Protein backbone atom coordinates (compact mmCIF):
# COMPACT_ATOMS: atom_id res chain seq x y z
CA UNK A 1 0.00 0.00 0.00
CA UNK A 2 2.83 2.34 0.90
CA UNK A 3 4.35 1.51 -2.48
CA UNK A 4 1.19 2.45 -4.28
CA UNK A 5 0.91 5.80 -2.51
CA UNK A 6 4.56 6.48 -3.19
CA UNK A 7 4.18 5.72 -6.90
CA UNK A 8 1.04 7.82 -7.23
CA UNK A 9 2.89 10.61 -5.49
CA UNK A 10 5.78 10.36 -7.94
CA UNK A 11 3.28 10.50 -10.81
CA UNK A 12 1.35 13.47 -9.39
CA UNK A 13 4.44 15.50 -8.53
CA UNK A 14 6.11 14.89 -11.89
CA UNK A 15 2.89 15.69 -13.75
CA UNK A 16 2.48 18.95 -11.81
CA UNK A 17 6.06 20.14 -12.15
CA UNK A 18 6.08 19.13 -15.81
CA UNK A 19 2.81 20.97 -16.36
CA UNK A 20 4.12 24.15 -14.73
CA UNK A 21 7.36 24.16 -16.69
CA UNK A 22 5.89 23.18 -20.03
CA UNK A 23 2.99 25.63 -20.02
CA UNK A 24 5.61 28.39 -20.27
CA UNK A 25 7.09 27.04 -23.51
CA UNK A 26 6.28 29.47 -26.39
CA UNK A 27 4.37 28.15 -29.47
CA UNK A 28 7.56 28.78 -31.45
CA UNK A 29 9.08 25.71 -29.80
CA UNK A 30 6.06 23.43 -29.61
CA UNK A 31 7.25 21.06 -32.33
CA UNK A 32 10.73 20.55 -30.85
CA UNK A 33 9.07 20.22 -27.44
CA UNK A 34 6.86 17.42 -28.67
CA UNK A 35 9.64 15.57 -30.44
CA UNK A 36 11.82 15.83 -27.34
CA UNK A 37 9.15 14.68 -24.89
CA UNK A 38 8.48 11.92 -27.38
CA UNK A 39 12.10 10.87 -26.98
CA UNK A 40 11.77 11.07 -23.20
CA UNK A 41 8.78 8.72 -23.29
CA UNK A 42 11.25 6.16 -24.64
CA UNK A 43 12.51 5.93 -21.05
CA UNK A 44 10.73 2.56 -21.26
CA UNK A 45 14.08 1.42 -22.61
CA UNK A 46 15.09 1.01 -18.95
CA UNK A 47 12.25 -1.48 -18.54
CA UNK A 48 13.35 -3.26 -21.67
CA UNK A 49 16.92 -3.56 -20.36
CA UNK A 50 15.63 -4.88 -17.03
CA UNK A 51 13.88 -7.68 -18.90
CA UNK A 52 17.35 -8.90 -19.81
CA UNK A 53 18.46 -8.93 -16.18
CA UNK A 54 16.17 -11.78 -15.23
CA UNK A 55 16.02 -15.37 -16.34
CA UNK A 56 13.43 -15.43 -19.04
CA UNK A 57 12.08 -17.77 -21.65
CA UNK A 58 13.04 -17.51 -25.29
CA UNK A 59 9.68 -15.90 -26.07
CA UNK A 60 10.16 -13.24 -23.42
CA UNK A 61 13.63 -12.55 -24.79
CA UNK A 62 12.28 -12.06 -28.29
CA UNK A 63 9.61 -9.67 -27.02
CA UNK A 64 12.26 -7.91 -24.94
CA UNK A 65 14.41 -7.44 -28.03
CA UNK A 66 11.43 -5.93 -29.83
CA UNK A 67 10.89 -3.54 -26.91
CA UNK A 68 14.58 -2.59 -26.99
CA UNK A 69 14.56 -1.93 -30.72
CA UNK A 70 11.42 0.22 -30.66
CA UNK A 71 12.47 2.12 -27.53
CA UNK A 72 15.98 2.88 -28.80
CA UNK A 73 14.53 3.88 -32.18
CA UNK A 74 12.20 6.29 -30.41
CA UNK A 75 14.92 7.59 -28.09
CA UNK A 76 17.70 8.25 -30.61
CA UNK A 77 15.36 9.39 -33.39
CA UNK A 78 13.57 11.83 -31.09
CA UNK A 79 16.68 13.51 -29.73
CA UNK A 80 18.42 13.70 -33.12
CA UNK A 81 15.44 15.27 -34.90
CA UNK A 82 14.95 17.76 -32.07
CA UNK A 83 18.57 18.79 -32.33
CA UNK A 84 18.26 19.27 -36.09
CA UNK A 85 15.13 21.36 -35.65
CA UNK A 86 16.46 23.62 -32.93
CA UNK A 87 19.50 24.35 -35.10
CA UNK A 88 17.24 25.68 -37.84
CA UNK A 89 16.02 28.63 -35.79
CA UNK A 90 18.03 31.71 -36.56
CA UNK A 91 18.06 34.96 -34.70
CA UNK A 92 18.02 38.39 -36.36
CA UNK A 93 21.60 39.59 -36.84
CA UNK A 94 22.14 36.25 -38.60
CA UNK A 95 25.01 35.49 -36.28
CA UNK A 96 26.90 32.37 -37.35
CA UNK A 97 24.44 29.75 -38.45
CA UNK A 98 25.80 26.98 -36.29
CA UNK A 99 24.19 24.15 -38.18
CA UNK A 100 24.80 23.30 -41.75
CA UNK A 101 21.62 21.71 -43.00
CA UNK A 102 22.12 19.43 -45.92
CA UNK A 103 18.45 18.66 -46.52
CA UNK A 104 16.18 21.23 -47.93
Amino acid sequence: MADLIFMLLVFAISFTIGYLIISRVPPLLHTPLMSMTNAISAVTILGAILLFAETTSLGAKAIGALALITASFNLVGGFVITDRMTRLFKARQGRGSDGQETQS
Partner: protein
Amino acid sequence: MSSWITTLFDLSIIVLLLVGISQFRTPRGARLGNTTAATALLLAILLVLYRNHILDPALLALALLVGSSIGALIALRATMIQIPAMVAFQHGAGGVAACTISLVELTRGGASTNIVEEVSGFLGLVIGAATFSGSMVASGKLAAKLRQTPSMLPGHNWILLFLLAAITGFCVFGSTTAGFALWVTLGCALGASILLGLVFAMRIGGADMPVLISFLNATAGLAAAFCGIVIQNRLLIACGATVAASGSILTAAMCKAMNRSLIKVLASGKSVARAGTDATAVVAAAPAKRVERTYAEALVAAKEVLRQAKSVIIIPGYGMALARAQFQVAALATRLEQLGKSATFAIHPVAGRMPGHMHVLLAEADVEYEKLRDMEDVNSVFEQTDVVIVVGACDVVNPAAVKMPDTPISGMPILNAHKARHVLVCNLDGRPGYSGVPNPLYDEPATLLLFGDANVTVTDLLQNLESAPEMPAK
Protein backbone atom coordinates in the same frame (compact mmCIF):
# COMPACT_ATOMS: atom_id res chain seq x y z
CA MET B 1 24.25 -0.08 -3.79
CA SER B 2 22.29 1.17 -0.85
CA SER B 3 18.79 2.36 -1.49
CA TRP B 4 19.27 6.00 -0.65
CA ILE B 5 22.08 6.33 -3.16
CA THR B 6 19.81 4.79 -5.78
CA THR B 7 17.11 7.28 -4.85
CA LEU B 8 19.59 10.11 -5.09
CA PHE B 9 20.68 9.02 -8.56
CA ASP B 10 17.09 8.70 -9.77
CA LEU B 11 16.25 12.07 -8.33
CA SER B 12 19.20 13.80 -9.99
CA ILE B 13 18.31 12.28 -13.35
CA ILE B 14 14.75 13.57 -13.03
CA VAL B 15 16.00 17.02 -12.01
CA LEU B 16 18.38 17.04 -14.98
CA LEU B 17 15.49 16.19 -17.31
CA LEU B 18 13.30 18.94 -15.89
CA VAL B 19 16.15 21.42 -16.19
CA GLY B 20 16.44 20.36 -19.82
CA ILE B 21 12.76 20.96 -20.46
CA SER B 22 12.82 24.30 -18.68
CA GLN B 23 15.41 25.48 -21.22
CA PHE B 24 12.68 25.52 -23.85
CA ARG B 25 12.21 29.29 -23.80
CA THR B 26 14.44 30.29 -26.67
CA PRO B 27 15.65 28.20 -29.63
CA ARG B 28 19.21 28.36 -28.34
CA GLY B 29 18.12 27.16 -24.92
CA ALA B 30 16.01 24.45 -26.52
CA ARG B 31 19.03 22.98 -28.23
CA LEU B 32 20.92 22.92 -24.94
CA GLY B 33 17.87 21.55 -23.15
CA ASN B 34 17.56 18.75 -25.68
CA THR B 35 21.19 17.79 -25.14
CA THR B 36 20.68 17.95 -21.37
CA ALA B 37 17.68 15.64 -21.53
CA ALA B 38 19.50 13.23 -23.82
CA THR B 39 22.43 13.15 -21.41
CA ALA B 40 20.09 12.48 -18.49
CA LEU B 41 18.55 9.49 -20.25
CA LEU B 42 21.96 8.19 -21.31
CA LEU B 43 23.06 8.35 -17.66
CA ALA B 44 19.91 6.49 -16.65
CA ILE B 45 20.64 3.75 -19.17
CA LEU B 46 24.26 3.40 -18.08
CA LEU B 47 23.15 3.24 -14.47
CA VAL B 48 20.67 0.45 -15.15
CA LEU B 49 23.30 -1.48 -17.10
CA TYR B 50 25.74 -1.03 -14.22
CA ARG B 51 23.31 -1.97 -11.49
CA ASN B 52 22.00 -5.13 -13.11
CA HIS B 53 23.66 -8.25 -14.31
CA ILE B 54 22.71 -8.59 -17.96
CA LEU B 55 22.19 -12.18 -19.00
CA ASP B 56 22.37 -11.84 -22.73
CA PRO B 57 24.58 -8.82 -23.47
CA ALA B 58 25.10 -9.75 -27.14
CA LEU B 59 21.40 -9.73 -27.94
CA LEU B 60 20.93 -6.54 -25.91
CA ALA B 61 23.72 -4.74 -27.74
CA LEU B 62 22.46 -5.92 -31.11
CA ALA B 63 18.89 -4.75 -30.43
CA LEU B 64 20.13 -1.39 -29.17
CA LEU B 65 22.34 -0.96 -32.22
CA VAL B 66 19.57 -1.83 -34.67
CA GLY B 67 17.00 0.46 -33.03
CA SER B 68 19.36 3.41 -32.59
CA SER B 69 20.78 3.30 -36.09
CA ILE B 70 17.36 3.12 -37.74
CA GLY B 71 16.20 5.98 -35.50
CA ALA B 72 19.22 8.14 -36.26
CA LEU B 73 19.07 7.40 -39.97
CA ILE B 74 15.42 8.37 -40.30
CA ALA B 75 15.85 11.44 -38.08
CA LEU B 76 18.77 12.67 -40.19
CA ARG B 77 16.97 12.18 -43.49
CA ALA B 78 13.48 13.48 -42.64
CA THR B 79 12.56 16.82 -44.16
CA MET B 80 10.77 19.39 -42.05
CA ILE B 81 7.46 18.78 -43.80
CA GLN B 82 7.77 15.10 -42.83
CA ILE B 83 8.29 15.91 -39.16
CA PRO B 84 4.66 15.36 -38.07
CA ALA B 85 4.53 11.96 -39.78
CA MET B 86 7.84 10.99 -38.20
CA VAL B 87 6.89 12.15 -34.72
CA ALA B 88 3.60 10.26 -34.99
CA PHE B 89 5.54 7.17 -36.04
CA GLN B 90 7.79 7.52 -33.01
CA HIS B 91 4.78 7.84 -30.71
CA GLY B 92 3.81 4.46 -32.13
CA ALA B 93 7.25 2.97 -31.41
CA GLY B 94 7.01 4.22 -27.83
CA GLY B 95 3.61 2.57 -27.58
CA VAL B 96 5.04 -0.76 -28.74
CA ALA B 97 7.82 -0.61 -26.16
CA ALA B 98 5.42 0.11 -23.28
CA CYS B 99 2.99 -2.53 -24.49
CA THR B 100 5.57 -5.31 -24.90
CA ILE B 101 7.21 -4.69 -21.54
CA SER B 102 3.81 -4.78 -19.84
CA LEU B 103 3.05 -8.00 -21.70
CA VAL B 104 6.18 -9.73 -20.48
CA GLU B 105 5.66 -8.56 -16.90
CA LEU B 106 2.03 -9.70 -16.89
CA THR B 107 2.85 -13.17 -18.16
CA ARG B 108 5.85 -13.59 -15.90
CA GLY B 109 3.39 -12.91 -13.06
CA GLY B 110 2.84 -15.73 -10.61
CA ALA B 111 4.59 -13.97 -7.77
CA SER B 112 2.96 -10.61 -8.45
CA THR B 113 -0.43 -10.84 -6.85
CA ASN B 114 -0.46 -7.11 -6.34
CA ILE B 115 -3.68 -5.75 -7.79
CA VAL B 116 -2.19 -2.32 -8.52
CA GLU B 117 0.61 -3.77 -10.59
CA GLU B 118 -1.77 -6.01 -12.43
CA VAL B 119 -4.17 -3.18 -13.30
CA SER B 120 -1.24 -0.98 -14.36
CA GLY B 121 0.10 -3.81 -16.47
CA PHE B 122 -3.17 -4.13 -18.32
CA LEU B 123 -3.39 -0.36 -18.76
CA GLY B 124 0.17 -0.22 -20.07
CA LEU B 125 -0.62 -3.02 -22.50
CA VAL B 126 -3.90 -1.55 -23.73
CA ILE B 127 -2.83 2.11 -23.96
CA GLY B 128 0.51 1.14 -25.49
CA ALA B 129 -1.12 -1.02 -28.17
CA ALA B 130 -3.82 1.55 -28.97
CA THR B 131 -1.18 4.31 -29.13
CA PHE B 132 0.76 2.15 -31.56
CA SER B 133 -2.08 1.54 -34.00
CA GLY B 134 -3.52 5.05 -33.63
CA SER B 135 -0.10 6.51 -34.35
CA MET B 136 0.35 4.34 -37.41
CA VAL B 137 -2.94 5.67 -38.79
CA ALA B 138 -1.95 9.25 -37.89
CA SER B 139 1.49 8.82 -39.42
CA GLY B 140 0.00 7.34 -42.59
CA LYS B 141 -2.41 10.25 -42.91
CA LEU B 142 0.30 12.83 -42.21
CA ALA B 143 2.61 11.25 -44.77
CA ALA B 144 -0.31 11.28 -47.25
CA LYS B 145 -0.09 7.50 -47.53
CA LEU B 146 -3.68 7.22 -46.30
CA ARG B 147 -6.71 9.26 -47.19
CA GLN B 148 -6.50 12.39 -45.04
CA THR B 149 -10.20 12.95 -44.60
CA PRO B 150 -11.97 11.32 -41.66
CA SER B 151 -13.43 7.87 -42.34
CA MET B 152 -16.57 6.97 -40.45
CA LEU B 153 -17.86 3.45 -39.90
CA PRO B 154 -21.55 2.84 -39.36
CA GLY B 155 -22.16 3.05 -35.61
CA HIS B 156 -18.65 4.30 -34.99
CA ASN B 157 -19.19 5.17 -31.34
CA TRP B 158 -20.85 1.82 -30.66
CA ILE B 159 -17.90 0.00 -32.17
CA LEU B 160 -15.56 1.97 -29.89
CA LEU B 161 -17.71 1.21 -26.84
CA PHE B 162 -17.90 -2.47 -27.79
CA LEU B 163 -14.12 -2.65 -28.14
CA LEU B 164 -13.64 -0.95 -24.78
CA ALA B 165 -16.04 -3.39 -23.14
CA ALA B 166 -14.33 -6.34 -24.80
CA ILE B 167 -10.91 -5.14 -23.65
CA THR B 168 -12.17 -4.70 -20.09
CA GLY B 169 -13.64 -8.20 -20.22
CA PHE B 170 -10.41 -9.76 -21.46
CA CYS B 171 -8.40 -7.96 -18.78
CA VAL B 172 -10.71 -8.99 -15.94
CA PHE B 173 -10.69 -12.58 -17.18
CA GLY B 174 -6.94 -12.42 -17.73
CA SER B 175 -6.34 -11.51 -14.09
CA THR B 176 -7.88 -14.82 -12.99
CA THR B 177 -5.97 -17.11 -15.31
CA ALA B 178 -2.40 -18.22 -15.77
CA GLY B 179 -0.25 -20.14 -18.21
CA PHE B 180 -1.46 -20.73 -21.72
CA ALA B 181 -4.98 -19.36 -21.12
CA LEU B 182 -3.41 -16.10 -19.94
CA TRP B 183 -1.37 -15.76 -23.13
CA VAL B 184 -4.49 -16.32 -25.23
CA THR B 185 -6.50 -13.79 -23.22
CA LEU B 186 -3.74 -11.21 -23.40
CA GLY B 187 -3.46 -11.84 -27.12
CA CYS B 188 -7.17 -11.09 -27.48
CA ALA B 189 -6.84 -7.93 -25.36
CA LEU B 190 -3.87 -6.88 -27.48
CA GLY B 191 -5.76 -7.42 -30.72
CA ALA B 192 -8.81 -5.53 -29.46
CA SER B 193 -6.59 -2.64 -28.31
CA ILE B 194 -4.91 -2.40 -31.69
CA LEU B 195 -8.35 -2.31 -33.32
CA LEU B 196 -9.43 0.34 -30.82
CA GLY B 197 -6.53 2.59 -31.85
CA LEU B 198 -7.31 2.12 -35.54
CA VAL B 199 -11.01 2.84 -35.20
CA PHE B 200 -10.28 5.77 -32.89
CA ALA B 201 -7.79 7.48 -35.20
CA MET B 202 -9.37 6.84 -38.58
CA ARG B 203 -12.16 9.35 -38.17
CA ILE B 204 -9.86 12.22 -37.31
CA GLY B 205 -8.26 14.04 -40.20
CA GLY B 206 -7.16 17.22 -41.90
CA ALA B 207 -7.13 20.24 -39.65
CA ASP B 208 -7.78 18.09 -36.57
CA MET B 209 -4.45 16.27 -36.95
CA PRO B 210 -2.60 18.61 -34.53
CA VAL B 211 -5.03 17.51 -31.81
CA LEU B 212 -4.61 13.83 -32.61
CA ILE B 213 -0.82 13.92 -32.63
CA SER B 214 -0.73 15.84 -29.32
CA PHE B 215 -3.19 13.41 -27.80
CA LEU B 216 -1.05 10.45 -28.87
CA ASN B 217 1.94 12.23 -27.31
CA ALA B 218 0.07 12.22 -24.01
CA THR B 219 -1.05 8.58 -24.27
CA ALA B 220 2.48 7.43 -25.12
CA GLY B 221 3.65 9.11 -21.91
CA LEU B 222 0.81 7.59 -19.94
CA ALA B 223 1.63 4.11 -21.25
CA ALA B 224 5.25 4.60 -20.15
CA ALA B 225 4.09 5.70 -16.68
CA PHE B 226 1.87 2.61 -16.24
CA CYS B 227 4.71 0.49 -17.48
CA GLY B 228 6.80 2.10 -14.74
CA ILE B 229 4.28 1.17 -12.05
CA VAL B 230 4.37 -2.47 -13.18
CA ILE B 231 8.12 -2.73 -12.90
CA GLN B 232 8.19 -0.34 -9.92
CA ASN B 233 10.59 2.05 -11.55
CA ARG B 234 10.36 5.65 -10.37
CA LEU B 235 12.15 7.05 -13.39
CA LEU B 236 9.64 5.57 -15.80
CA ILE B 237 6.74 6.92 -13.76
CA ALA B 238 8.24 10.39 -13.49
CA CYS B 239 9.21 10.64 -17.16
CA GLY B 240 5.92 9.17 -18.33
CA ALA B 241 3.99 11.66 -16.18
CA THR B 242 6.01 14.61 -17.52
CA VAL B 243 5.40 13.54 -21.11
CA ALA B 244 1.70 13.05 -20.36
CA ALA B 245 1.60 16.59 -18.95
CA SER B 246 3.29 17.96 -22.06
CA GLY B 247 0.93 16.12 -24.39
CA SER B 248 -2.08 17.35 -22.39
CA ILE B 249 -0.94 20.96 -22.58
CA LEU B 250 -0.45 20.77 -26.34
CA THR B 251 -3.78 18.98 -26.83
CA ALA B 252 -5.58 21.68 -24.85
CA ALA B 253 -3.78 24.46 -26.76
CA MET B 254 -4.78 22.98 -30.10
CA CYS B 255 -8.41 22.51 -29.05
CA LYS B 256 -8.54 26.08 -27.81
CA ALA B 257 -7.12 27.33 -31.11
CA MET B 258 -10.03 25.72 -32.91
CA ASN B 259 -12.64 26.48 -30.26
CA ARG B 260 -13.58 22.80 -30.18
CA SER B 261 -13.75 20.57 -27.16
CA LEU B 262 -11.55 17.50 -27.11
CA ILE B 263 -14.64 15.29 -27.14
CA LYS B 264 -15.92 17.03 -30.27
CA VAL B 265 -12.64 16.56 -32.08
CA LEU B 266 -12.12 12.97 -31.02
CA ALA B 267 -15.64 11.66 -31.01
CA SER B 268 -17.79 13.59 -33.44
CA GLY B 269 -16.09 13.18 -36.79
CA LYS B 270 -18.98 15.24 -38.08
CA SER B 271 -17.37 18.53 -38.98
CA VAL B 272 -16.98 17.69 -42.63
CA ALA B 273 -20.37 16.14 -43.26
CA ARG B 274 -22.11 19.04 -41.58
CA ALA B 275 -19.97 21.55 -43.38
CA GLY B 276 -21.00 20.11 -46.73
CA THR B 277 -24.59 21.25 -46.37
CA ASP B 278 -23.66 24.57 -44.77
CA ALA B 279 -21.22 25.29 -47.53
CA THR B 280 -23.70 24.92 -50.35
CA ALA B 281 -26.28 26.98 -48.49
CA VAL B 282 -23.91 29.85 -47.87
CA VAL B 283 -22.55 29.77 -51.39
CA ALA B 284 -26.06 29.97 -52.80
CA ALA B 285 -26.96 32.81 -50.44
CA ALA B 286 -23.95 34.92 -51.32
CA PRO B 287 -23.67 35.52 -55.04
CA ALA B 288 -20.23 36.76 -55.97
CA LYS B 289 -20.05 40.47 -55.46
CA ARG B 290 -16.34 40.37 -55.95
CA VAL B 291 -14.76 42.40 -58.71
CA GLU B 292 -13.77 39.93 -61.41
CA ARG B 293 -10.19 40.39 -62.49
CA THR B 294 -7.96 38.29 -64.65
CA TYR B 295 -4.83 36.94 -62.99
CA ALA B 296 -2.65 39.45 -64.86
CA GLU B 297 -4.81 42.38 -63.74
CA ALA B 298 -4.83 41.19 -60.16
CA LEU B 299 -1.07 40.75 -60.24
CA VAL B 300 -0.48 44.28 -61.48
CA ALA B 301 -2.82 45.68 -58.84
CA ALA B 302 -1.20 43.53 -56.15
CA LYS B 303 2.28 44.79 -57.02
CA GLU B 304 1.08 48.35 -56.93
CA VAL B 305 -0.43 47.77 -53.49
CA LEU B 306 2.83 46.20 -52.29
CA ARG B 307 4.90 49.11 -53.61
CA GLN B 308 2.80 51.60 -51.71
CA ALA B 309 2.72 49.56 -48.50
CA LYS B 310 4.76 50.37 -45.42
CA SER B 311 3.74 47.38 -43.33
CA VAL B 312 3.11 43.87 -44.58
CA ILE B 313 2.02 40.78 -42.65
CA ILE B 314 2.26 37.37 -44.26
CA ILE B 315 -0.16 34.66 -43.11
CA PRO B 316 1.14 31.23 -44.07
CA GLY B 317 -1.04 28.12 -44.01
CA TYR B 318 -0.48 24.46 -44.65
CA GLY B 319 -1.18 25.05 -48.35
CA MET B 320 2.11 26.96 -48.49
CA ALA B 321 3.94 23.93 -47.12
CA LEU B 322 2.17 21.62 -49.57
CA ALA B 323 3.27 23.85 -52.44
CA ARG B 324 6.77 23.95 -50.90
CA ALA B 325 6.57 27.71 -51.35
CA GLN B 326 8.07 28.67 -47.98
CA PHE B 327 11.37 29.55 -49.62
CA GLN B 328 9.73 31.92 -52.10
CA VAL B 329 7.64 33.41 -49.31
CA ALA B 330 10.77 33.96 -47.23
CA ALA B 331 12.44 35.60 -50.22
CA LEU B 332 9.42 37.88 -50.63
CA ALA B 333 9.66 38.94 -46.98
CA THR B 334 13.38 39.67 -47.36
CA ARG B 335 12.72 41.68 -50.53
CA LEU B 336 10.02 43.73 -48.79
CA GLU B 337 12.39 44.49 -45.93
CA GLN B 338 15.08 45.56 -48.36
CA LEU B 339 12.56 48.01 -49.79
CA GLY B 340 12.21 49.52 -46.32
CA LYS B 341 8.88 47.98 -45.40
CA SER B 342 8.17 46.00 -42.28
CA ALA B 343 7.41 42.36 -43.08
CA THR B 344 6.40 39.89 -40.39
CA PHE B 345 4.59 36.57 -40.24
CA ALA B 346 1.36 35.91 -38.37
CA ILE B 347 0.99 32.28 -37.39
CA HIS B 348 -2.21 30.62 -36.30
CA PRO B 349 -1.66 27.84 -33.73
CA VAL B 350 -3.17 25.20 -36.05
CA ALA B 351 -1.50 26.47 -39.23
CA GLY B 352 0.57 23.31 -39.62
CA ARG B 353 -0.05 19.66 -39.03
CA MET B 354 1.31 19.61 -35.48
CA PRO B 355 1.76 22.29 -32.81
CA GLY B 356 4.48 24.73 -33.89
CA HIS B 357 4.98 23.03 -37.25
CA MET B 358 4.71 26.28 -39.25
CA HIS B 359 7.42 27.89 -37.15
CA VAL B 360 9.80 25.08 -38.00
CA LEU B 361 8.95 25.19 -41.71
CA LEU B 362 9.70 28.92 -41.83
CA ALA B 363 12.84 28.52 -39.75
CA GLU B 364 14.00 26.02 -42.35
CA ALA B 365 13.47 28.70 -44.99
CA ASP B 366 15.82 30.98 -42.99
CA VAL B 367 13.13 33.30 -41.64
CA GLU B 368 14.45 34.79 -38.42
CA TYR B 369 12.27 33.63 -35.56
CA GLU B 370 11.73 37.15 -34.18
CA LYS B 371 9.57 37.77 -37.25
CA LEU B 372 7.17 34.97 -36.39
CA ARG B 373 4.30 36.38 -34.39
CA ASP B 374 1.56 34.47 -32.61
CA MET B 375 -2.14 35.11 -32.88
CA GLU B 376 -2.84 36.93 -29.59
CA ASP B 377 0.16 39.13 -30.11
CA VAL B 378 -0.52 40.13 -33.71
CA ASN B 379 -4.30 40.36 -33.94
CA SER B 380 -4.50 43.91 -32.66
CA VAL B 381 -2.03 45.11 -35.28
CA PHE B 382 -3.99 44.22 -38.42
CA GLU B 383 -6.00 47.45 -38.39
CA GLN B 384 -2.82 49.47 -38.83
CA THR B 385 -1.44 47.10 -41.46
CA ASP B 386 -1.29 48.10 -45.11
CA VAL B 387 -1.16 44.68 -46.73
CA VAL B 388 -1.80 41.13 -45.59
CA ILE B 389 -0.57 38.35 -47.85
CA VAL B 390 -2.37 35.05 -47.26
CA VAL B 391 -0.43 32.08 -48.61
CA GLY B 392 -2.18 28.73 -48.57
CA ALA B 393 -4.44 29.51 -45.61
CA CYS B 394 -8.22 29.67 -45.60
CA ASP B 395 -10.11 28.68 -42.44
CA VAL B 396 -7.73 30.54 -40.12
CA VAL B 397 -8.51 33.86 -41.86
CA ASN B 398 -12.19 33.18 -42.51
CA PRO B 399 -14.22 36.07 -41.03
CA ALA B 400 -17.28 33.81 -41.03
CA ALA B 401 -15.83 32.34 -37.85
CA VAL B 402 -16.48 35.60 -36.00
CA LYS B 403 -19.34 37.04 -38.04
CA MET B 404 -21.66 34.10 -38.72
CA PRO B 405 -23.24 32.13 -35.90
CA ASP B 406 -23.88 28.65 -37.28
CA THR B 407 -20.94 27.47 -39.30
CA PRO B 408 -18.65 24.62 -38.26
CA ILE B 409 -15.90 27.14 -37.53
CA SER B 410 -18.03 29.72 -35.67
CA GLY B 411 -16.26 30.79 -32.52
CA MET B 412 -12.86 29.65 -33.75
CA PRO B 413 -10.28 32.37 -33.11
CA ILE B 414 -8.96 33.66 -36.43
CA LEU B 415 -6.26 36.00 -37.64
CA ASN B 416 -8.02 39.28 -38.40
CA ALA B 417 -6.72 39.59 -41.96
CA HIS B 418 -9.99 41.22 -43.03
CA LYS B 419 -9.15 44.27 -40.91
CA ALA B 420 -6.07 45.16 -42.94
CA ARG B 421 -6.26 47.80 -45.68
CA HIS B 422 -5.46 45.35 -48.46
CA VAL B 423 -5.44 41.58 -48.60
CA LEU B 424 -3.63 39.50 -51.21
CA VAL B 425 -4.69 35.87 -51.34
CA CYS B 426 -2.16 33.48 -52.86
CA ASN B 427 -4.16 30.28 -52.53
CA LEU B 428 -4.44 27.41 -54.97
CA ASP B 429 -8.09 28.18 -55.73
CA GLY B 430 -11.19 29.79 -54.28
CA ARG B 431 -12.56 26.65 -52.73
CA PRO B 432 -13.33 26.61 -49.02
CA GLY B 433 -10.76 25.27 -46.56
CA TYR B 434 -10.95 22.01 -44.67
CA SER B 435 -14.04 23.14 -42.74
CA GLY B 436 -16.00 23.51 -45.97
CA VAL B 437 -17.10 27.04 -45.09
CA PRO B 438 -16.72 29.48 -48.01
CA ASN B 439 -14.50 32.42 -47.19
CA PRO B 440 -16.25 35.83 -47.45
CA LEU B 441 -12.81 37.44 -47.29
CA TYR B 442 -12.44 36.58 -50.98
CA ASP B 443 -15.40 38.83 -51.83
CA GLU B 444 -14.18 41.91 -49.97
CA PRO B 445 -13.37 44.86 -52.24
CA ALA B 446 -9.98 45.21 -50.52
CA THR B 447 -9.02 41.68 -51.49
CA LEU B 448 -6.98 40.75 -54.54
CA LEU B 449 -7.07 37.09 -55.53
CA LEU B 450 -3.99 35.48 -57.02
CA PHE B 451 -5.07 31.88 -57.39
CA GLY B 452 -2.60 29.24 -58.46
CA ASP B 453 0.45 27.33 -57.28
CA ALA B 454 1.89 29.51 -54.51
CA ASN B 455 5.37 28.85 -55.86
CA VAL B 456 4.39 30.58 -59.10
CA THR B 457 2.18 33.33 -57.68
CA VAL B 458 4.68 34.41 -55.02
CA THR B 459 7.50 34.34 -57.57
CA ASP B 460 5.35 36.52 -59.84
CA LEU B 461 4.84 38.96 -56.95
CA LEU B 462 8.57 39.08 -56.34
CA GLN B 463 9.47 39.84 -59.92
CA ASN B 464 10.41 43.48 -60.60
CA LEU B 465 9.05 44.43 -57.21
CA GLU B 466 11.68 47.13 -56.90
CA SER B 467 11.09 48.84 -60.22
CA ALA B 468 8.93 51.92 -60.68
CA PRO B 469 5.18 51.45 -61.04
CA GLU B 470 4.45 49.97 -64.43
CA MET B 471 1.57 50.92 -66.63
CA PRO B 472 -1.22 48.39 -66.32
CA ALA B 473 -0.87 45.94 -69.18
CA LYS B 474 -3.89 45.67 -71.46
